[in-house]
C-alpha cells in the first residue's frame, strides 16, 4: 500500500511537470474536441478515429500520446449522447437509454437543459469512477479475474430480467419484444462454432444484423415516422425557434444528485465485471432511477432525471474497464485493445509486471484521466450552445436532414449496402411496434445481450465437461449467489410495478 502511495506521488510529479503539463492539456483538449465531433456525427465512430490516429502516438511522448487517445475516448462517449438527445439517434448502444427522455425534453424546449444535464452527470460519473479506480486498482483486478463465463452469463441474465421488469408498458409486451430481439440476434453465425443460422442461404445475412443500423432504424427512423403523422405544432413548440432553450438550474441538478450517485455506483460496479459494459450500465442505471422515483410514470416522457441516470452510469464504467488491460494485458473491448496497442508502442507493456516496473507512469496516466474529466467539463460546457442551436432548425428542414444523416451515417460505417436495408426494415418494425404501444428498448437490449449470454452459457457447458449442475454448484459459488438472487430481485420488481400501476389506476378512476 505504501508503495502505491509513493508511485501515485511520483505519477502526479510526472503529469504536473510544469515543462510538459501545458502541452499535455493541449493534446487532451484536441482529443476531447475530436472525440465529441466523431461521436456526434453518425457514421464516424470513436473506435475508428482512435484506430486511424494510433500511429501518431508512436511518435509522441507517452504523456502526450496516451492522454490524446483518452481524450478522444471520453469525448466520444458524450458526443454520442448529443444526437440521442436532439434527434433520438443513438450513435452507440450506450446512448440508447438516453433516447428515452432526451428527445422528449428537446421537444418541450428543454434540449439545452438535457445536454447540460448529460454533460454534468457524465463528468461526475466518470470522475468518481476514475478516482475509485486509482485507489482500488488491485482489488478490482482480483475481482475481474474471478469473473469467468458462468458468472458473466448469470450477471447478463439478471440484467435482462431487471431491464424487462422495469420497462415502460405492459410486462408481457416487454417480454414478447425481448424474445423477438433474442431471435434476431441469432441470425448469422453462432458465437461458439461459427455455424450459419437463419440465413436462408442469403450471403449478406451470414454476418448477422449489424447493431448500428438496427439501433438507428429502431429509435431514430421510427421516431421520424411517428412524427410525420403529427401536425407540426404538436411536434415542436413554434415559439422555440426564437429561443435558445433555457439553461439547467442548480436546484434541478441538485434534485438529481441521488440519482447520479446511484448510477455512478451501478456503473462502476458493472465496469469491474469484464464483458458487461456501458450498454447494460446505462439501462440498469435508468431502471434503478425509475424504480426509486416517486413519480416513475414521468420517466420516458421528458424527465431530466432519466438523462442523468443513463449518462452517469455509462460513463462510470470507464475507469474500472481499464484495469484488466493494465494489470493483465487483457483488453475488455475494442477501444481498450487500441489503448493496449498504444501502451505497447510507447514502451509500457501492460501485465502484472507493469505496476511493479512502471508504477509512476501508470499513475500519471490514470491521473491524466481525472484531469481529462475536468477539462471536459469546460470544453463541453462551452460547446453546448453550438449544439443546442439544432432545436432552432425548422422541423421542415430538421426531419429531412435527420433522415439524410441516418442513411449516410449508417452507410459510412462499413460501406455495406446491406446496412441500408437493415436500417429501413428496422425503421418499419420500430414504427409498427411503437404504434401498437410496444416498448422497443427490450428488443435492442436482447439483441445486444443475447449473443453474449449464449456464448457464456455454451462456454460454461464446455467447461463443465458434461456435469453442468455439479460444476456450478461446487466450483462456482459466485454464480450460485447471482442465480439465487435473480428470482428474488425479479419478484420484488414485479410486485413494485404492479403496485404502482394499481395506484395509478386508482388515481385516474378517482379523477374521473
Amino acid at each position, binding site marked *: 500500500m505504501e508503495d502505491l502511495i509513493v508511485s501515485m506521488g511520483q505519477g502526479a510529479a510526472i503529469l504536473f511537470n510544469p515543462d510538459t503539463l501545458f502541452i499535455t492539456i493541449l493534446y487532451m483538449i484536441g482529443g476531447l474536441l475530436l472525440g465529441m465531433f466523431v461521436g456526434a456525427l453518425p457514421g464516424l465512430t470513436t*473506435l*475508428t478515429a482512435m*484506430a*486511424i490516429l*494510433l*500511429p501518431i502516438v*508512436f511518435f509522441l511522448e507517452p504523456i502526450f500520446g496516451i492522454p490524446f487517445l483518452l481524450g478522444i475516448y471520453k469525448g466520444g462517449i458524450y458526443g454520442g449522447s448529443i444526437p440521442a438527445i436532439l434527434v433520438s439517434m443513438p450513435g452507440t448502444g450506450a446512448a440508447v437509454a438516453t433516447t428515452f427522455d432526451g428527445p422528449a425534453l428537446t421537444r418541450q424546449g428543454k434540449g439545452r437543459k438535457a445536454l447540460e444535464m448529460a454533460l454534468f452527470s457524465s463528468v461526475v460519473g466518470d470522475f468518481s469512477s476514475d478516482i475509485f479506480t486509482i485507489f482500488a486498482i488491485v482489488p478490482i483486478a482480483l475481482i475481474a*479475474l*474471478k469473473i*469467468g*463465463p458462468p458468472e458473466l452469463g448469470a450477471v447478463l441474465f439478471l440484467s435482462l430480467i431487471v431491464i424487462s421488469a422495469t420497462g415502460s408498458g405492459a410486462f408481457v409486451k416487454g417480454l414478447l419484444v425481448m424474445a423477438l430481439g433474442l431471435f434476431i440476434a441469432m441470425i*448469422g*453465425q453462432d*458465437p*461458439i*462454432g*461459427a455455424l*450459419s443460422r437463419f440465413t436462408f442461404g442469403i*450471403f449478406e445475412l*451470414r*454476418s*448477422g444484423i*449489424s447493431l448500428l443500423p438496427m439501433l438507428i432504424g429502431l429509435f431514430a427512423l421510427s421516431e421520424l415516422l411517428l412524427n410525420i403523422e403529427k401536425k407540426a405544432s404538436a411536434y415542436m413548440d413554434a415559439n422555440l425557434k426564437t429561443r435558445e432553450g433555457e439553461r439547467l438550474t442548480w436546484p434541478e441538478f441538485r434534485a438529481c444528485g441521488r440519482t447520479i450517485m446511484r448510477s455512478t455506483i451501478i456503473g462502476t460496479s458493472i465496469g469491474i465485471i*469484464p*464483458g458487461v459494459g456501458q450498454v447494460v450500465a446505462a439501462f440498469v442505471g435508468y431502471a434503478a432511477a425509475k424504480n426509486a422515483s416517486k413519480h416513475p410514470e414521468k420517466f420516458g416522457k421528458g424527465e431530466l432525471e432519466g438523462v442523468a441516470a443513463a449518462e452517469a452510469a455509462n460513463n462510470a464504467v470507464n475507469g474500472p474497464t481499464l484495469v*484488466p488491460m493494465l494489470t*493483465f*494485458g*487483457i*483488453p*475488455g*473491448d*475494442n*477501444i481498450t*485493445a*487500441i489503448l493496449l*496497442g498504444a501502451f*505497447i*508502442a*510507447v*514502451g509500457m*507493456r*501492460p*501485465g*502484472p*509486471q*507493469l505496476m511493479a516496473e512502471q508504477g509512476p507512469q501508470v499513475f500519471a496516466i490514470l491521473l491524466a484521466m481525472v484531469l481529462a474529466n475536468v477539462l471536459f467539463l469546460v470544453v463541453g460546457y462551452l460547446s453546448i450552445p453550438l449544439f443546442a442551436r439544432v432545436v432552432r432548425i425548422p422541423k421542415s428542414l430538421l426531419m429531412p436532414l435527420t433522415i439524410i444523416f441516418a442513411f449516410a451515417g449508417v452507410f459510412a460505417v*462499413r*460501406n*455495406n449496402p446491406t446496412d441500408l436495408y437493415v436500417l429501413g426494415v428496422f425503421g418499419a418494425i420500430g414504427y409498427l411496434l411503437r404504434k401498437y404501444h410496444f416498448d422497443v428498448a427490450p428488443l435492442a437490449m436482447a439483441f445486444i445481450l443475447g449473443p453474449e449470454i449464449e*456464448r457464456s452459457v455454451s*462456454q460454461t457447458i*464446455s*467447461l463443465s*465437461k458434461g456435469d453442468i449442475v455439479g460444476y456450478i454448484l461446487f466450483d462456482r459459488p459466485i454464480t450460485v449467489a447471482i442465480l439465487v438472487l435473480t428470482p428474488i430481485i425479479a419478484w420484488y420488481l414485479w410486485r413494485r410495478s404492479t403496485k404502482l400501476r394499481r395506484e395509478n389506476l386508482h388515481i385516474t378512476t378517482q379523477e374521473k
Partner: protein
Amino acid sequence: MRMNLMKIVSATALILGLSVGGAIAQNYPNKPITLILPLGAGGSHDLNSRVFTSIIPKYLDQAMIVKLMPGASGQTGTAAAATAPADGYTLLFSHNYFDQLQQHVKDLPYDTTKDFVTVARLNSARFCLIVLANSPHKTINGLLDFGRANPGKLEFAHSGQWGAGMVPGARLLQWAKVDANMTPYRGGGPSLRALLAGDADFTVQLPSTISGQGDTVRTLACVKDEPVVGSPPTFKSIGFPSELGEMHRIIMAPRGIPADRLAVLREAFVKMQEDKTYKRMMKRLGEDTNLMDGAEYEKLRPIQSETYKTLVESMTKG
C-alpha cells in the same frame, strides 16, 4: 457552325482525355489503393495495417486506404475483395486460416486459391503454449503424457473456433493423440484470462503477450526460439514433423491482376523492409518484419490447405 465547334471541342477533349488516361494507366498506381481488412478495429491486423499503410505511400507514390469490413468470420470482407475489379486498386489483408483453412469447414461463396494471388506475406506471429507458473505440468512432454493418460481431463482455452490461437493447439493435440476439452473464447485476451483464473490448464498465446505476464506463467514450447520468454523448446524439437503455430499476415490481390501491376506492388513491399521508420514502428508494436515475397508464399498455400484438410477431417469425424 456553332454545333460543329461544339463537336470539335468535345471530340478533342475526349481524345485528350483518353490519351491522358491511357498514359497514366501504364503508370500504375495513379489513384489511392483500397486495402480491405476482413477483420474488426483494434485487432492485430488493424494495428499492423495502420503502420504499413502510413509508410507504403513512400514506395508506391499513392495512398493506401484501410477499409474495415468485418463479419461472418472474415467472409464479408473476403467476398467483397474477391468480387472487386482485378485492377490492382483493391487488395485484401488476411491471414492463412481465412485463406486456406476456412474452405474446409465452411461453404464459401468464393475460392481463395483461385480468386487471390499473394502480393506479400507482411510478417508472421508465432505462438507459444503456456501454463500457469504453479501448474504441475513442467514440460511439454509431461503435459502431453498427462493428457494421453487422462482423456478429456486437460482443459484448453483458445481464442475462437478455427482461429489462429486454436489451430496450433488442435494440431499438436491431434499429433500427440491427446483428447483434451477445448473451450472457445472471444479472442486471445479472454482465453488468457481463463488460464490466469485457473479455468484452463493451458492456452496458446503470442510471445508479446506472454512477456507482459512476467513469472505468473510458464512457457512450455514455442514455434521458434523466442528469447523474450526464456528458452523453451520448439515444437520441432519434441518431434512435431512440420511447421506449427505461425499466423501469416498476408496481402492478397484478386487473381486477375495484370502481371506488371503485381510486380510493382511486390517490389514496393520488398523495398519498404529497409525503411527505418517502418522497422522502428513495427518494433514498438512488438511485431516482426520478416517479409516473405509473394511468389515464395504462393508455394506454401497448397501445403497449408492439405494440412488443414487432414486436421479438420480428423476433428470433425468424432
